[in-house]
């Protein structure tokens, strides 16, 4: 991992949260290299005992404008809770309307789910 180009950006937070290091590494690479996000930076979320990733999604035709999103990585094998999800929201400043949970599996598949606080209708 140390020889990987992503390592310098992540090294501090990988050291701080070794348990979630694998998920962080996988999601960071997926976002920067496969999903082609730009302006990507890592954040420290002590309330969730891990790092999160903030960046700009590539805009699609249906988007109204560029969107800055926050992604919280997590592995399939972990056990989380609704209070954990809400802590992710309150740790972020400014308070986002939604966050993305990136769920990683051992075969390097990463799936992204959008979590919003409150009762938010799906788009038509």
């Amino acid at each position, binding site marked *: 991992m140390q020889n990987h180009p992503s390592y310098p950006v992540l090294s501090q937070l990988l050291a701080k949260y070794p348990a979630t290091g694998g998920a962080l590494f996988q999601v960071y690479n*997926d976002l920067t290299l496969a*999903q082609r996000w730009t302006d990507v930076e890592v954040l420290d979320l002590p309330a969730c005992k891990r790092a999160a990733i903030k960046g700009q*999604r590539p805009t699609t035709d249906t988007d109204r404008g560029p969107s800055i999103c926050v992604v919280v990585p*997590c*592995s*399939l094998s*972990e*056990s*989380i*809770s*609704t*209070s*954990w*999800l*809400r802590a992710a929201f309150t740790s972020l400043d400014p308070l986002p309307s939604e966050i*993305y*949970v*990136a*769920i990683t599996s051992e075969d390097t598949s*990463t*799936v*992204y*789910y*959008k*979590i*919003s*606080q*409150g*009762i*938010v*209708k*799906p788009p038509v």
Partner: protein
Amino acid sequence: MTQPILLRVSNFKAYVWDVDDINILRSHHHICGILTGTLPHLSSQNIFLGLPLQLMPEEAVLLVENGIAVLVDDPSAHHTPSPSVLKSWKEARLNDVRQQIALTEEKGSIEASNPDRAMSENAKRKRKEREERRARAKSDGVPCIPAEHSPSPRPTPENPSQTTVGETPDNTIAMPSGSYTVNIPASSSKLEWYAPRSHISLTIAREAGIWLYPSTLQERARCGVFRDLWEKGYYMGGGIKFGGEYLVYPGDPLRYHSHFVASVIEAPDAALRPMEIVAHGRLGTGTKKAHLLCEWNDETQVVSYLSVEWAGFG
């Protein structure tokens, strides 16, 4: 002040047997329930069901807590009828049967005197042609070949008003012979020997031993979430078809599709597996809904919501 609706409890389930009550529950209180009644003789009934309406326990709890309904122990509300009450019930039934038979006779005699009345012009013309053909064949000595659509012979009306003295248990009332329908009312409320005792609160019902819900944290969480969604004006239905506890509709389910599938999370720190987010989120998005994680906090008695959708990328 309107009378509270009687929820008839049998084996810890709340049923509504009166159509007017079902109407009020749906239109005034946006509680839908599900119809569970079937007909005795038909198999595979699962599309079109009738009375009674069965309520989810959370629905019954909310209605009683809000004073809209009271719980009634249905089995003990059916008392043994006194001999005189039973006699008048039997007489009423006998009168109904006699009326039915009289109407059948009347209809039969009208049709006998005017056989063409029920047939269409086309049918009358075809029948006439058939009869002419038969008459010609007969006069030609050709054996009569039955036509394809010969009308079935009308059943000769018996004289149904002859009463037969049958073996009745008390030997006082004899039933007439002839065919008639026996009507069994769905609701017991008009029966003279039905005397329900209302339990006006859940505590009272629990002490009487007829109602237990909610007893566990999971059940309290469901009641709390259901109530919160109800107070926000939503209609709720069962969620099994979409992998959740409830389907949450913005209006009457007969008019709207649901926007949400809701799961009840019994505590803020209850273990949640990421796979559940994947499963709920993908199924919700795949069916044009969002998944609602409804977290119950038993200490603060507050519900917090998180909406889950597939991100659309990745």
